[in-house]
């Protein structure tokens, strides 16, 4: 399974995702600079976390218009998988790969802590090694993670089973207390219609090794390898 990680000016989780992908796949990830116009052949593209362009104008807005993104959007249209994490999720919504928008956290604070997520569906290559309803732990670190879409868009996402993760408590119940940023319907991550693109605010790559304090994120990468190798 071949992977590529896009690096924007200000990305800071590109190395973390590279380490996690290489540990799972056993093959080196291609690190692709935002100003390049072509992608290497790959099965999965990662849009990493960070502060591309300093979050100027809107988080992910300028990165979404980088030269490489035309190739990424084109590759995604042809079925290449995309894993868009945190700033990567912001870039994905700004470039139209995923619906909705990530707004400033309702608290206006930068939130940096582990959260609990409920896996909404295991029917995807990203979540196949989890079970539906399973509660997992992953870290978040963001100021603009408040997922917003119009009501009918949210209904459509839910109706088509495209919500991947929701913020929850230890019993898997949704509540305002378990929602760290005010996201609509506690949504932490979503798929595109074909479930070939996953955008999520939490960082699976940051809890993918026992030396990082946990391996709930590793489950995602192992599942992807089984599906795509």
């Amino acid at each position, binding site marked *: 399974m071949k992977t590529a990680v896009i690096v924007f000016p200000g990305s800071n989780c590109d190395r973390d995702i590279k380490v996690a992908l290489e540990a799972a796949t056993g093959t080196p990830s291609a690190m692709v600079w935002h100003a390049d116009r072509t992608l290497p052949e790959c099965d999965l593209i990662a849009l990493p976390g960070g502060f591309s362009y300093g979050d100027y*104008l809107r988080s992910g*807005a*300028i990165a979404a218009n980088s030269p490489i993104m035309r190739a990424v959007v084109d590759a995604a249209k042809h079925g290449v998988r995309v894993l868009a994490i945190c700033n990567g999720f912001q870039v994905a919504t700004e470039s139209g790969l995923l619906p909705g928008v990530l707004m*400033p*956290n*309702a*608290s206006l604070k930068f939130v940096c802590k582990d959260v609990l997520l409920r896996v909404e569906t295991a029917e995807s290559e990203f979540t196949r090694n989890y079970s539906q309803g399973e509660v997992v732990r992953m870290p978040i670190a963001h100021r603009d993670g408040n997922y*917003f879409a119009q009501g009918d868009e949210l209904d459509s996402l839910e109706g088509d089973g495209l919500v991947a993760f929701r913020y929850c408590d230890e019993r898997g119940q949704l509540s305002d207390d378990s929602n760290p940023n005010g996201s609509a319907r506690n949504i932490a991550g979503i798929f595109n219609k074909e479930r070939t693109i996953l955008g999520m605010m939490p960082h699976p790559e940051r809890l993918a090794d026992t030396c990082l304090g946990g391996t709930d994120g590793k489950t995602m990468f192992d599942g992807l390898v089984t599906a795509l190798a």
Partner: protein
Amino acid sequence: MKARIHITLKNGVLDPQGKAIQSSLGALGFFGIENVRQGKYIELDIAQSDPAKAKAELSHMCEKLLANTVIENYAIDLEA
């Protein structure tokens, strides 16, 4: 031509920054202040002398980059 663009949140979109500003104004002793909403203002020079063409290009710029039309409206003012 000089363009002045105001980008504002659509009605119904939560604006915690506006709320924070409103609270602060209250704490400073300014009363009767409601519905504070924060937006963005961008000004630029555009090398296009035809106002209709300029407006069309500016709208395209707003749709593509300057505004996120899921949550924002934009208003363009032009002066020669």
